[in-house]
């Protein structure tokens, strides 16, 4: 199975919506790859520069209600084509969370206190996710470990490589 983890892109704000992740004007693209340069183009977050901050990252860490708004799966694909495989947040909007797992990617919820610790690790943080054990190891200037639970069905989707593969076998 796919490995989950990588260097962390911290987006320290709640309610980041899918219009910010990928503006609607790019929804006219008919391939996922074409979305790649436009990631987080309209994100309202002081000091953030997508051109500088996204490259080389594998994990996004954010706050509450991540991915709210439009149902566009383009918001998941634009992460995928930028090699981001996991988003960790306090909570997710339902459709975004489902889209992540449907694509075989990980949307992990952690309590606010754990996120505070994660945001406070300092330096360049790298994360390794052990899906089977439900553990996250994070290493920046300091190290920390977190446990998480994934809805059992979502875990099955991720392990199957997504909803289409799962559904085609079963229904």
């Amino acid at each position, binding site marked *: 199975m796919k490995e989950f983890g990588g260097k962390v892109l911290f987006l320290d704000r709640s309610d980041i919506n899918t219009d910010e992740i990928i503006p609607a004007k790019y929804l006219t693209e008919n391939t996922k790859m074409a979305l790649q340069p436009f990631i987080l183009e309209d994100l309202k977050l002081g000091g953030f520069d997508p051109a500088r901050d996204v490259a080389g990252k594998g994990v996004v860490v954010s706050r509450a209600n991540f991915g709210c708004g439009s149902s566009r799966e383009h918001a998941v694909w634009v992460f995928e084509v930028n090699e981001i495989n996991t988003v960790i947040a306090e*909570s997710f909007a*339902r459709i975004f969370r489902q889209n992540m797992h449907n694509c075989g990617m990980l949307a992990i919820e952690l309590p606010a206190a754990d996120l505070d610790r994660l945001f406070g690790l300092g330096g360049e943080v790298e994360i390794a996710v052990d899906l089977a054990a439900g553990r996250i190891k994070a290493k920046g200037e300091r190290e920390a470990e977190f446990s998480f639970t994934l809805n059992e069905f979502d875990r099955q989707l991720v392990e199957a490589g997504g909803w289409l593969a799962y559904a085609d076998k079963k229904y």
Partner: protein
Amino acid sequence: MGQTIVEKIFAAHRRDTPTPENIILDLDVVMCHEITTPIAITDLESRGMDRVFDPDKIKAVIDHVTPAKDSKTATQGKILRDWARRHKIRDFFDIGANGVCHALFPEKGFIRPGYTVIMGDSHTCTHGAFGAFAAGVGTTDLEVGILKGVCSFRLPKSMRINLTGNLSAGVVAKDVILHIIKELTVNGATDRVIEFVGPVVAAMSMEARMTLCNMAIEAGATCGICLPDRVTAEYLWPFIKDEYESLEVATTHFKKWHSDPDAIYEKELSFDVSGLVPQVTYGYKPDEVKDITDMEGTPVDQVYIGSCTNGRIEDLRAAAGILKNRRISPQVRGILSPATPKVYSQALEEGIIKIFLEAGFCVTNPTCGACLGMSNGVLAEGEICASTTNRNFNGRMGKGGIVHLMSPLAAAAAAVAGHITDPRKYQ
């Protein structure tokens, strides 16, 4: 133990229960538009799985950018059109017959009480107004829906919102839902279904109920839902008259979906709407809502009346009531997009289009276009739009633009005044 309406719908559509928390539902309607469906189609083709589970249960429309504005949007339309023809999807709506999906499909009678409905569009929750479970999904869910006629959901928790009192003149469904979103916040209903009940809902038309349910997603809800009643039966009558002897029989039949008196709700809220005044959003989140009187004087560059929230005939009538014998401010660009050809045609017959034109509005064809900054009224950097749409996110109607959400009455008043103002002054 009693069941809620959504629990009844889920029980009647259960295909599988992969875990105690999740359910796979059989779908009655899978709706498609040209923005989120083409990638599902090309993916199915590339996997050698270019099939549909039932062409009669699939409804498709080109609505987001129509007529096509460039080669890319023309290609999206072509992919959807070719696919609909290839699979003999009868209910496909192209130029001349197309309109905003969540206004068009109800008009065609496609949504019935007790149905399960998905679409690759977050405002699919609109159709809960008919007592259906209707949810927005991503492209992969849509793809599986097209192929297998199923979709996965977590078992729903329900929140019941009881609306009591009487709406004052100049205060409409849009004001009610903006106020509710403010109270719930943008994730106050995540993974929940909002059941709207009470005398205010019972007195609402289907158009108003659709406005109410349309914005349930802005509080994070999976679906907004109303209990189907005589108003629902009257709206659907042209489509169901062969199935029922009378409206009374249909209305009674619909009651089988009503939540039981002992159904369990996670949360029950009650709002008395009597004191509610017209509402408006500020900022970049739909829960950032104020009384319009607190935003008096905010200048606007553009006024947009349309969308799946407020582009229906009642909305146009309400706005026209303010615009009649008035001219819009020279500072303002006014844009009206009737949501469907039927709405457009009815507005022509009633003289409403003439009122908009004489007031100085531009009238466009039915399309989603400007609401999400794709076409037909995109804002420039720093411009402000008074809009009857559903999202005020940063960049939503154009990069650097600012959107204030409000009712059609308030939007018409802003067009006349050139700034945000209390629409009750113009009635």
